[in-house]
């Protein structure tokens, strides 16, 4: 009987695959977006820094930075769900990313000058198109400060 993989091997493989997906994109690094993983569930964090501020008087996060954060969270979630089976099969190396077709952002309250979190759900993923919803919060998971829905063009895959 085949032995299950040791837990450290699995974790290391999944974390490395996720890190490559995220860190390959310079803009993710520019904004400082990081992802945490529980099994296949991802949570994106936008750590607060002064360069994210759009209204220095309030102060509040820039709507564009919030929008970009949600788009990154949605895109990585979709890519992660597309490539999960390949990563589980041991594949490594860069992956083509889904391309945003449209993105609609709902600003529910102003972004406070502290860390923001986001989780995305792939509502539909077809051969060519996908629809992804993403929710973002700060202090309280129940009080979203922004949400968005986006449509993506699926990356071409060999085979």
């Amino acid at each position, binding site marked *: 009987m085949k032995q299950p993989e040791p837990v450290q091997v699995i974790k290391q493989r999944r974390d490395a695959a996720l890190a490559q997906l995220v860190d390959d994109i310079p803009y993710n690094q*520019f904004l400082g977006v990081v992802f945490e993983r529980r099994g296949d569930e991802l949570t994106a964090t936008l750590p607060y820094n002064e360069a994210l501020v759009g209204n220095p008087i309030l102060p509040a996060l820039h709507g564009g930075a919030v929008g970009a954060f949600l788009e990154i969270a949605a895109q990585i979630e979709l890519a992660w769900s597309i490539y999960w089976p390949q990563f589980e099969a041991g594949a490594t190396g860069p992956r083509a990313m889904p391309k945003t077709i449209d993105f609609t952002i709902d600003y529910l309250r102003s972004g406070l000058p502290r860390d923001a979190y986001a989780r995305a759900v792939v509502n539909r993923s077809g051969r060519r198109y996908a629809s992804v919803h993403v929710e973002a919060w700060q202090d309280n998971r129940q009080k979203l400060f922004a949400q968005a829905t986006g449509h993506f063009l699926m990356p071409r895959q060999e085979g």
Partner: protein
Amino acid sequence: MSEKKAKLARQFIGAIPHSRALEMRIDDVLAGRATLSLPYNERFIGDPETGVLHGGVVTALLDTAMGTAVVSHPQSMGGTATIDLRIDYMRAATPGQRITAKAECYRVTRAVAFVRATAYDEGEEPVASAAGAFTVEGSRP
């Protein structure tokens, strides 16, 4: 743009840390219309294979151009915040080229400003278009 207005515009955009971080520039602003641009920067890349800028950069530029159009509108009394923003990405921006967003605040009510915007690279065809609703602040007694 007159020298005095250009200076004011530079101060306005210079006071927004995120716009400064993205090296945004106000090219023109007049009564509900604003044109803003930002340079190509390798740190803003969204697709490492092609060098195309990340959609989020275009979003940030469009959002800022739209907010600037709102505050420059004759009926606007001061600040604004985005209520909702929809972006359509029509094509990838050409790597190496400057991105320019032209925004128009076409309707202002007592509470809401309606805005549309289009983003271009150095070519003729638009890269992205946006429609949004923004708050109108300071106008209610």
